[in-house]
């Protein structure tokens, strides 16, 4: 990896005696798309504000684009931010909003004009919008104007503070696709804060999961999804099944025992157990709902569960089942079909592959 565009080392942030961030060490490669995710209050927004320069560091160091950021005001930093509430200036036209950073830098008018038009094109905004005011645009268009304003001076780093949280689901999907496209097109590094792990997985090259002011895990989306560092990360997206189990070491790999899971050979590879899990200790087996499948009578699988359907929800592309196995409720997603594979009260056999299992610390 070439030298990172952002290098944060041991960042601490206190509000009075409250420790909002502790020992955050993080690097972002040039051109990378990093997502910061976590529940509200986890410190992701504080971290973003520290990167942008709206908050001071209480400890640690921050280097962006080769410069130490200590004492550098937001206005002088090589970062630009897209705000949650967009913060478009209501008294300035679209053109004035987009061109604002260049206007502040006292660039000649013709240069600003060219740059604004280029951004307009990049953002698929109509030229007739130039003289409109932000309140005359739709939510999605306002979003694009905000992006254009942040991108116009070609900053090495773009910071995004949940800019899509206020949009409806459909618009959000299309803007996410556009954002991904934009990122590939401009080559700027993006740091994107969101509480939506699904959005993060869709957009980011790497995801940084935070909790209570600490980084829990940094990794590629597939790592976060299939190899979560702990039960918190595992449970952060969707309805994950976490089954209590005992883990013991067996040669290169592990053996496990779980009351409600019948397996012919209950073994896990070395890479199927999270780092924190101690052999012989209690652990949780993570089973994503889509890894389970309904077994036809006589069909076999590495592991099976027997239970009764308590509820189901038709969700279009998939059908979600809630199945009671012993006293535990198991969630299962199966591909949607026009004929329901099972109904309420049916006794069902579920199967899954051993390779889909992953154990995390209890």
């Amino acid at each position, binding site marked *: 990896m070439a030298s990172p565009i952002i290098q944060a080392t041991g960042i601490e942030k206190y*509000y009075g005696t409250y420790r909002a961030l502790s020992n955050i060490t993080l690097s972002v490669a040039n051109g990378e798309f990093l997502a910061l995710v976590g529940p509200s209050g986890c410190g992701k927004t504080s971290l973003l*504000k520290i990167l942008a320069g*709206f*908050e001071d560091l209480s400890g640690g160091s921050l280097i962006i684009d080769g410069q130490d950021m200590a004492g550098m005001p937001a206005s002088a930093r090589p970062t630009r931010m897209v705000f949650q509430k967009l913060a478009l200036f209501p008294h300035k036209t679209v053109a004035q909003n987009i061109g604002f950073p260049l206007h502040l830098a006292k660039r000649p008018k013709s240069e600003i004009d060219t740059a604004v038009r280029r951004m307009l094109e990049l953002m698929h905004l109509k030229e007739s919008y130039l003289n409109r005011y932000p309140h005359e645009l739709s939510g999605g268009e306002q979003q694009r104007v905000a992006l254009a304003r942040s991108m116009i001076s070609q900053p090495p780093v773009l910071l995004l503070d949940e800019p899509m949280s206020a949009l409806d689901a459909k618009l959000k999907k299309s803007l996410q696709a556009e954002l991904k496209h934009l990122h590939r097109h401009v080559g700027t590094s993006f740091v994107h804060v969101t509480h939506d792990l699904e959005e993060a997985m869709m957009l980011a090259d790497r995801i940084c999961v935070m909790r209570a002011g600490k980084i829990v895990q940094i990794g590629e989306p597939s790592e976060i999804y299939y190899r979560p560092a702990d039960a918190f990360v595992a449970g952060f997206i969707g309805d994950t099944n976490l089954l209590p189990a005992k883990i013991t070491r067996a040669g290169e790999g592990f053996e496990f025992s779980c009351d409600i899971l019948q397996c012919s050979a209950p073994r896990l590879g070395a890479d199927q157990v999270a780092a924190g899990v101690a052999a012989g200790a209690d652990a949780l087996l993570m089973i994503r709902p889509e890894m389970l499948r309904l077994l036809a009578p006589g069909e076999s699988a590495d592991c099976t569960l027997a239970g009764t359907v308590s509820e189901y929800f038709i969700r279009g592309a998939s059908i979600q089942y809630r199945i009671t196995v012993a006293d535990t409720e198991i969630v299962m997603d199966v591909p949607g079909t026009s004929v329901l594979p099972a109904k309420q009260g049916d006794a069902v056999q579920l199967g899954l592959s051993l390779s889909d299992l992953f154990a995390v610390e209890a």
Partner: protein
Amino acid sequence: MAEMQKSWRDGALRLSTLPLLVLMGLFFVIPLIMTALLSFQGTQYYRLVWTWDLNVWTDVFSQIHYWKIMWRTLTMALVCTLLCTVLAIPIAYGMLHRLSRWSDQITLLMVFAFLTDAVLKTFGWVLFLDRSGVLNGTLESIGFPPAAVNVLFSPNATMIGMVYNLLPYTIFTTALSMARIDRDLVLAARDAGATRLRAFVEVTLPLAKPGIWAGAVLVFVLSLGVFLEPKVMGGGTSPLAAELIRQSFETRVNWPLGAALTLVLIVIGAAVLAVAGALAFWQARRGSND
């Protein structure tokens, strides 16, 4: 966000506050202290003498004349406050919810009436209410005896003038807080079975209370210090405290007396405000415990 948290070393904070602080200190706080100090001095042959005694104060408290005027001032102020506060409620409500289409124009008309020269308007009242004024002249022309309404140059005329000049304050504050009430709350009360009046009493009035209180406080304070209406409309027959203060500075040139009377009036005002504040606080606390 944390940026707006300013330390006193911050240049922007200093720039925005220090000129005001200096001004208020020099021309508001120091004068108040001065006034207190002056009340302990005396006068001789229309000149101030630095005697440092309580003569003026014993004078103020021992003469029944002063007590009477202070009492009259206080009762007039309270009556005026009550009238302005009560009258403002239907006016503000009607402006907002019956004549809402015109409320901008009505507000402007009121602001205009409010902001024009009070001396002129008071004089206008004299011309209207005079024995040969518009009112009596009109009444006479339709068959009433001459000078049928003989109200000018009486305490009632003073009250008309005071209410006239101060009513806009209560209307504005009451309307402001009524306008902020979510109409759905009133609809919810109606939906729950309340009559219009019940919904008004149970929902609108309690929620408009801050504005009603603010207006009442402003009017009370301002009505303590009037001498224009008593002099021009009341004809000087029953002077109020402000007239007394004016005279002690102007005609009698007894500054220590004027200072003492000023302080008495300030203390009366502050005392009533403190009682009102305590009542409001007590009520708010009781409300939150319910």
